[in-house]
């Protein structure tokens, strides 16, 4: 607390405390606070106690301490007691305030001290500073506005603005991005940076960037709002990363909108601090963007104007269009400078003149009418009309009129005119060519079509008569084919020249055109000595003749002659025009001539002819074609030709047609056609393409019969070959004047040679003969062969593979009309198999014969083809049969078979032979060689059959089994006897015996069973006698067998 040294201490104290400004007293030596008032405590935020422990340095910002020390030093040394100065103080909360210090030196409690009043001027100071800044900003705004508005190069001006703004509001970078008008991309155009910041203006990555790449700040920009951010506080995003990479701490982006279009943006980067832009700064920047928008708009408008002006200028000055402004009567008000270039008339010459002064008389009424129309509609088009040029030539022009009578500054009719002379002339030529071509191309005879065409020529205003002359077939003369006198009654010309209908080359006007071969003009016809029809010309008042040669591919076809009443001078345009027209008629006239010639030929030809369009349809056909296919005309004309072609040939035919159309002139081709009856017709086609008419003239030759004959021949040849192959039959021929024979394929095959390895010379053929047979080749065939007669020879050959083969040759000698042999031919057949078979057969026959002779049995064989049975001689002596005879039931063997058996034997044999699968037959039968005698036979045979089961050969053997049969009978009888003995033994002997045994059992075991001993004994005795009788009988029987056995043995 202040401890006043004066007597007014209480009062002073109160004043000190109640002063509304902070006050304190400090020790000048130590700077320590010695006393502070209440306002100081309130204002600075320190308590009194805190103050008294502080020095005055503690309420200063550190950086101001030297300033303070200096001030104190001055205070101490100063002589006057009052001092006033401005300082910065720092409050307890760290805030800086600007204070005005007033101090007085006092002695406070014996210490040299300073009493200080601090008046806080911060608010005022801030306000002043702000006003300063605003002032500066206003200056900047004014400056930039001036810069932008004054400069022609607005981009450059913008850079200057950026520099001023950047330095003023202390940012590190300002840039302008301009959006592309056509796509959503933007490119950096201008950039200003502080010296230490690296510019990005040349960074290609900042060109044509998609707007979508910066969604974060594009969103507000598109809503016409700015984007402001402290980078660190942005949410994580690629934008944030990019900004951070560039060390940008704060960013502000302002959109540039022009006429409701988002045109670009201005951005500001601060790399030093995180900041919020103040209202004043925004004001400045908004002013800049708005000015910039205005400038760009203005600039664009200026550019547009500039370009359109330039365009207009270039159109007017360099174009070929004539532009004129006329008034309602056709008087020229303005003519563009192009008139000089196009018409050779300078613009000034038109002024004050009327347009109709320059227009061709014939066209004037039409144009006047058109000019009248412009008052009712804004635009009027005028079809080509003639207009004179500086040289007096008539030029074809076409005009578009536009009504600008009420348009300020113009107040007239604007006539935009183009020269169309070339087009009009060409169109006229084309039109006439089209009319003439169409007339000539019509169906009909050559002369009628040409007549039609000539009638179009005489419709031309200056042409009265026209005629056409064509070179004759023999090329010797020109013939008058057709003529037309129009409707003006010039027929007098022909009435007076009836006899003149042909000229040779070099005579008359047509003949001269032929020899000169160019367009010619003869004038003054009535007095022209070369003109044969001068009289006629005079009578018809024809003055001039225009001769126009007709060519087709350099060939002179003839000429068209047009007669006119006009003079040469008046006809120059017509001559050129007709010459152009005639040049284009060659093809169609040539076609017509060809057509005429062809038509004549067409219908008399026996071969099918037709004209096929490129579309495949038959345009025309001759009778032969129709007869061949059998369809009616309508069907033939309404159907593509491929419809009549066999389906397998359609594709090739289509390809051939296409190839022909595309210029393939290769030879003819063959295709099958199907007639209405479904028959196949082979046709060989060849044709000529007439491209101009899109047709093919096709001629065919019916080769069906030829083909069938060929096919039959081929088939026959194939069959022959096959037959030869099957029969192993080769053919050879040799002319006597040649050493070499010709062999057929099969001949080589038989000899096992190929034509490449073997040449059938006489020497080589001799070598193929088996050495033992070569003698056959030694004779001269002409000596021992009778001409025309076939002679056979069988011999062996040595084949190419070293085999021996048997062949049979049938040889024939051919003689000429004088009987002289000139050729020998023959067949050669491989008969090896047959030979081998024959050899084997004869061998086996031999063996069989021997076997038949050697056998005890009667071997027999049936030849089924001959129905002959052959027998061995085995039993011939005993049974007296024929060794070879017909196979029948009545033959020498079968008739001897016992009647009981004969029928069955015959039947079973026949059955076996007739059964397709039976290969074996057997039978036992009795044979009666003579009355009363019987012999037993066992007969059997094997049957050989062909593949059809038919018996081919049967071989059998009959065996006499009589003796064995008799022995068997004997054994049977003996067996019977023995069986009887056995039976007797078993039944007859054992009957009494078993009775005896029973009686003994009765006596012994059953005690007689009620019989006495005597009775039993008697019964036993009876039984014993009975037994004895039986034994006697058996003995007799046994003896009997013995006797029979002994007899048989002796037999």
């Amino acid at each position, binding site marked *: 607390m202040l401890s006043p040294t004066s007597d007014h201490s209480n009062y002073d104290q109160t004043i000190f405390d109640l002063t509304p400004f902070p006050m304190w007293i400090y020790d000048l030596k130590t700077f320590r606070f010695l006393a502070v008032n209440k306002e100081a405590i309130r204002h600075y935020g320190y308590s009194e106690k805190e103050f008294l422990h502080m020095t005055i340095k503690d309420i200063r910002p550190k950086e101001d301490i030297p300033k303070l020390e200096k001030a104190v030093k001055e205070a101490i040394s100063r002589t006057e007691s009052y001092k006033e100065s401005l300082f910065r103080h720092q409050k307890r909360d760290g805030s800086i305030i600007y204070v005005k210090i007033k101090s007085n030196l006092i002695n406070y409690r014996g210490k040299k001290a300073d009493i200080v009043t601090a008046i806080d001027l911060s608010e005022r100071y801030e306000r002043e500073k702000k006003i300063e800044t605003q002032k500066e900003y206003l200056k900047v705004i004014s400056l930039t506005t001036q810069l932008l508005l004054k400069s022609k190069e607005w981009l450059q001006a913008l850079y200057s603005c950026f520099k001023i703004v950047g330095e003023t509001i202390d940012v590190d970078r300002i840039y302008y991005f301009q959006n592309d008008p056509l796509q959503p991309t933007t490119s950096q155009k201008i950039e200003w940076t502080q010296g230490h910041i690296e510019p990005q203006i040349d960074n290609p990555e900042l060109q044509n960037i998609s707007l979508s790449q910066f969604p974060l700040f594009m969103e507000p920009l598109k809503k016409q709002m700015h984007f402001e951010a402290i980078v660190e506080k942005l949410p994580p995003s690629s934008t944030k990363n990019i900004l951070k990479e560039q060390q940008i701490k704060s960013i502000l982006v302002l959109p540039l909108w022009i006429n409701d279009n988002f045109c670009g943006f201005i951005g500001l980067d601060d790399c030093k601090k995180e900041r919020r832009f103040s209202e004043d700064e925004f004001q400045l920047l908004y002013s800049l963007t708005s000015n910039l928008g205005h400038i760009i708009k203005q600039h664009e408008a200026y550019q547009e104007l500039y370009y359109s002006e330039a365009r207009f200028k270039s159109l007017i000055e360099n174009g070929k269009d004539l532009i004129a402004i006329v008034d309602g009567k056709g008087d020229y008000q303005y003519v563009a400078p192009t008139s000089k270039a196009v018409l050779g008339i300078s613009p000034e010459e038109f002024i004050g003149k009327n347009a109709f002064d320059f227009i061709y008389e014939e066209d004037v009424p039409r144009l006047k009418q058109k000019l009248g129309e412009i008052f009712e509609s804004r635009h009027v088009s005028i079809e080509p009309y003639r207009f004179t040029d500086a040289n007096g030539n008539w030029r074809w022009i076409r005009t578009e009129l536009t009504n600008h009578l009420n348009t300020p500054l113009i107040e007239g009719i604007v006539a935009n005119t183009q020269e169309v002379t070339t087009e009009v002339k060409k169109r006229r030529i084309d039109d006439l060519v089209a009319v003439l071509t169409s007339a000539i191309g019509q169906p009909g005879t050559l002369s009628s079509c040409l007549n039609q065409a000539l009638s179009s020529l005489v419709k031309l205003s200056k042409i009265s008569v026209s005629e056409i002359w064509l070179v004759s077939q023999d090329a010797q003369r020109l013939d008058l084919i057709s003529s037309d006198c129009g409707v003006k009654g010039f027929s007098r010309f022909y009435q007076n020249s009836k006899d003149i209908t042909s000229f040779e080359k070099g005579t008359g006007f047509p003949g001269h055109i032929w020899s000169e071969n160019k367009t010619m003009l003869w004038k003054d016809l009535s007095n022209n000595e070369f003109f044969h029809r001068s009289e006629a010309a005079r009578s018809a008042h024809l003055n001039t003749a225009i001769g126009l040669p007709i060519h087709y591919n350099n060939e002179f076809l003839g000429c068209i002659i047009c007669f006119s009443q006009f003079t040469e001078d008046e006809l120059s345009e017509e001559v050129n025009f007709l010459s152009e027209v005639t040049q284009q008629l060659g093809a169609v006239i040539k076609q017509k001539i060809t057509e005429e010639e062809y038509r004549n030929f067409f219908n008399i030809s026996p071969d099918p002819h037709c004209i096929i369009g490129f579309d495949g349809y038959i345009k025309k056909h001759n009778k032969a074609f129709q007869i061949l296919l059998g369809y009616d005309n309508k069907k033939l004309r309404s159907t593509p030709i491929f419809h009549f072609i066999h389906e397998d040939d359609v594709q090739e035919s289509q390809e051939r047609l296409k190839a022909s159309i595309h210029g393939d002139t290769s030879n003819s081709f063959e295709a099958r056609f199907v007639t209405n009856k479904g028959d196949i017709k082979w046709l060989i086609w060849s044709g000529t393409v007439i491209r101009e008419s899109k047709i093919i003239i096709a001629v065919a030759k019916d080769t069906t019969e030829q083909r069938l004959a060929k096919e039959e021949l081929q088939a026959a040849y194939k069959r022959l070959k096959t037959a030869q192959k099957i029969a192993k039959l080769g053919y050879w021929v040799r002319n006597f004047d040649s050493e070499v024979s010709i062999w057929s394929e099969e001949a080589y095959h038989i000899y096992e040679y190929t034509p490449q390895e073997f040449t059938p010379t006489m020497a080589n053929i001799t070598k193929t003969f088996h050495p033992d047979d070569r003698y056959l080749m030694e004779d001269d065939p002409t000596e021992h062969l009778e001409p025309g007669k076939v002679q056979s020879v069988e011999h062996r050959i040595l084949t190419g593979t070293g085999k021996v083969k048997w062949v049979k040759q049938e040889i024939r000698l051919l003689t000429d009309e004088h009987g002289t042999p000139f050729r020998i031919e023959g067949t050669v057949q491989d008969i090896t198999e047959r030979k081998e078979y024959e050899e084997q057969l004869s061998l086996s026959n031999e063996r069989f014969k021997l076997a038949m002779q050697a056998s005890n049995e009667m071997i027999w064989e049936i030849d089924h083809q001959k129905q002959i049975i052959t027998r061995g001689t085995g039993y011939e002596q005993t049974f007296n049969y024929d060794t070879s005879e017909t196979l029948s039931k009545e033959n020498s063997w079968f008739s001897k078979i016992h009647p009981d058996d004969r029928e069955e034997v015959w039947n079973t044999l026949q059955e076996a032979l007739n059964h397709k699968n039976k290969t074996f037959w057997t039978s036992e039968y009795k044979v009666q060689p003579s009355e009363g005698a019987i012999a037993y036979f066992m007969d059997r045979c094997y049957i050989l059959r062909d593949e059809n089961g038919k018996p081919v050969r049967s071989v059998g053997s009959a065996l006499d089994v009589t003796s064995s049969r008799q022995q068997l009978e004997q054994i049977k009888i003996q067996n019977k006897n023995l069986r009887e003995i056995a039976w007797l033994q078993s039944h007859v002997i054992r009957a009494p015996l*078993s009775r005896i045994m029973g*009686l003994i059992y009765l006596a012994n075991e059953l005690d007689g069973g009620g019989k006495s001993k005597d009775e039993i004994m008697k019964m036993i005795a009876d039984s014993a006698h009975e037994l004895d009788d039986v034994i006697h009988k058996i003995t007799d029987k046994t003896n009997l067998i013995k006797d029979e056995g002994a007899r048989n043995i002796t037999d």
Partner: protein
Amino acid sequence: MKVQEILLIDDDPIINFINKKIVEPEFPHYGIMVLENGLQALEYIQKNPQKRYLIFLDINMPVMNGWEFLKAISLDSGQYDLSIHILTSSIDESDKVKAQSNKQVLSYLPKPLTKDVLKVIK
């Protein structure tokens, strides 16, 4: 209960007498009927079809032998209750084989008949 009867079919009266003496004590509840040949036996059976018969049949008999009887009775064998044993003096193998092949024959007994044989039959 059926009446049981023994038929002794043999043409030899002595044999029949002996056999009756042998059979009687062995089959006390049976009646015994002696028949001289097959035909007599056939007729007897046909007349008395309801009885149960134990038959001792000889082969070699006049009028109708044993084989013929078997053949004849087989035609309506299903109607009768017969137990047939051939009792013959034949020891011929062919007879034995023939008897064995006949389904109606229970056994082939060579004469003479003994009690021992009957015990086996029982």
